[in-house]
């Protein structure tokens, strides 16, 4: 069993033909109206309200169409006329109508500046169908030309890609003329007294009028190839007569298609209000959901914030300890830097006394310079005799001093010799052993 969603509105479509009445229960789908159930009932006599009421009531009760159900009537051209007016309907009077203007309901379904396809129906017919609709508890909404029913039911398409291609569907005495670009432009019911040949001639004149307006409005000259051919007329009577069995899935109408081709007879206020309620409700629902999500997120944020604040509080002693240690280690580093700078260039106090105790005999110390790198001693020899060319410092005296050649200057007979002895660096690598000569 197919579930029907609450917003899927059901409507009753009544297609009135020459010898039959098609009743369809239509459901508003996502993009188009489609058939849920359809009955085709024979029409034995002239159209009468009691018979129609009986048919509609029976069908509605069988398919759950309750009170207030909106009803669309698809009427043949002898009831709802489809007239081709070669002018803009808004700029001309209604003298082309066979009745006084107050006696008809009039509307346009296609056209522009060049022409208008007008729908009109006499008030008597209007009252008849409104009465039938109200008697079955429905609401009259639209009168549509039966051509729309025929066209969509049989899925006819223009047989040519030409810009002004025309298509003629013949349904008994009803002839429907479709333009490729403008859709339904003319629909008429031929008189019973006309022979088929006469009917084709009349339809040919209609075609010529349409082509004249659309193609050559200035001259009105017709092309011979545009003359009506009998073979171009498609008789759909037989096809329609077959629509009595299972529900035809082909009868699908888009809302745009449905509402653009009809005469509005009912009130749409409640429909608009219903739609607005749905939109308003939808928006409120969306906002409510958004607000609920945001509120939940807000609560989560606050909860997380409380937890993080507690964690932060528990970390505070450690953070303070780290900051304290940071300051302390910085001060420590500074103290160590200064201490290193103070002691890095210190020399040994005792080296001077040890070295000077071994000054060569006869030499007199003239100057001494001592720092952490070297000990420089200047000796004055009274003569060149006895000068030490190099002052070797035994390890017993000071193991850290290295031997360095002297430099000398002569002053008269005395000789001034400078010795420079460097301290070994701790990091100095030991000199590699001298390579032995091969025998």
């Amino acid at each position, binding site marked *: 069993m197919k579930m029907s969603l609450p917003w899927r509105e059901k409507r009753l479509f009544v297609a009135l033909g020459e010898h039959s009445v098609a009743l369809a229960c239509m459901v508003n789908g996502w993009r188009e109206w489609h058939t849920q159930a359809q009955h085709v009932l024979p029409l034995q006599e002239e159209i009468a309200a009691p018979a129609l009421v009986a048919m509609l009531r029976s069908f509605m009760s069988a398919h759950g169409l309750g009170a207030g159900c909106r009803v669309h009537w698809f009427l043949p051209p002898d009831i709802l006329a489809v007239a081709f007016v070669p002018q803009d309907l808004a700029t001309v009077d209604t003298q082309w109508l066979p009745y006084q203007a107050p006696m008809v309901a009039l509307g346009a379904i296609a056209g522009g500046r060049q022409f208008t396809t007008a729908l009109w129906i006499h008030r008597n017919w209007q009252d008849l169908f409104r009465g039938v609709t109200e008697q079955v508890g429905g609401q009259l909404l639209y009168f549509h030309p039966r051509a729309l029913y025929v066209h969509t039911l049989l899925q006819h398409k223009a047989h040519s890609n030409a810009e002004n291609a025309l298509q003629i569907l013949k349904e008994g005495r009803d002839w429907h003329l479709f333009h490729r670009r403008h859709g339904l432009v003319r629909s008429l019911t031929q008189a019973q007294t006309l022979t088929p040949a006469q009917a084709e001639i009349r339809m040919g004149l209609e075609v010529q009028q349409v082509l004249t307006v659309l193609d050559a409005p200035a001259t009105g000259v017709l092309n011979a190839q545009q003359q009506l051919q009998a073979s171009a007329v498609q008789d759909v009577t037989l096809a329609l007569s077959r629509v009595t069995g299972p529900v035809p899935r082909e009868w699908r109408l888009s809302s745009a298609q449905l509402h653009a081709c009809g005469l509005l007879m009912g009130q749409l206020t409640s429909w608009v209000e219903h739609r607005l309620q749905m939109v308003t409700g939808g928006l409120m629902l969306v906002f409510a959901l958004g607000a609920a999500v945001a509120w939940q997120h807000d609560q989560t*944020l606050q909860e997380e914030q409380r937890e993080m604040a507690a964690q932060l509080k528990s970390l505070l002693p*450690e953070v303070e300890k780290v900051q304290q240690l940071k300051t302390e280690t910085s001060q420590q580093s500074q103290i160590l830097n200064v*201490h290193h700078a103070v*002691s890095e260039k210190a020399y040994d106090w005792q080296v001077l006394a040890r070295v000077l105790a071994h000054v060569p005999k006869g030499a007199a110390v003239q100057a001494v310079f001592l720092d952490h790198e070297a000990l420089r001693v200047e000796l004055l020899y009274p003569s060149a005799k006895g000068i030490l060319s190099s002052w070797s410092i035994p390890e017993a005296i000071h193991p850290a001093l290295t031997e360095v050649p002297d430099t000398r200057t002569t002053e008269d007979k005395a000789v001034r010799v400078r010795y420079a002895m460097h301290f070994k660096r701790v990091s100095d690598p030991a000199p590699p052993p001298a390579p032995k000569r091969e025998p």
Partner: protein
Amino acid sequence: MKLPRLWPDALRQTRLMTWAPLLIPVLVFLTLADRWYPSYAEHRERHAEVALRLERAQALADLLPRYQEKADAQADGVEAAKKTALTNEQVDASVAQIKQHLQSMLTAEFIDEVPQFDITPDAPEGSSAGSALLLRVDLRLLVSPQQLAGLEARLLPFKDRFVPVEMELTVVPDPKRASRQLDARFHFRVMHMDKAPVTADASASVPPAAATVPPSNASSLPPQPTR
């Protein structure tokens, strides 16, 4: 997109007030945006701020073992440095202490010719001003070799405090005594430390043996050796 005929028909049939319900969600939305969103935005901002603070605090707390380790590693060196430093509240006090101490040594050795006696602060390269400071002592004396030996003997016990960096001796004539004497130039380095540079709490990380040394002892100079 072509508007279905129904909507233009519906617009013609309805009054303006029919469309008023559409204002309800708009007003609700505006009210929510006006009344509630500021506090929501404030909560989000505060949440982000607390999260950032927590992240930083956690990063700092993670560093605690490293800082503790570093402090412990440096504590011995700092204690050793403190033993060799002059600890006073201000550097001027240390300067005066050095002057007084050296002057007493010179007096004890009867050295009265002192052409130069300068003490200047000298920050080591790359260090910033802090609780410790390097003091440079430049001393020039005209002495006999015996006086020099005596002075060295007096300075020797303080070699860790008055760190000798350079010494230059030159034999020069002594016109007063018709003899010769030594023109001696000394360059010492002394470390000054502000009192209590390390916080009391931080001293807890110092090993107990080092922590038991009272700071006041470090600032006092031991008695001079007698000849």
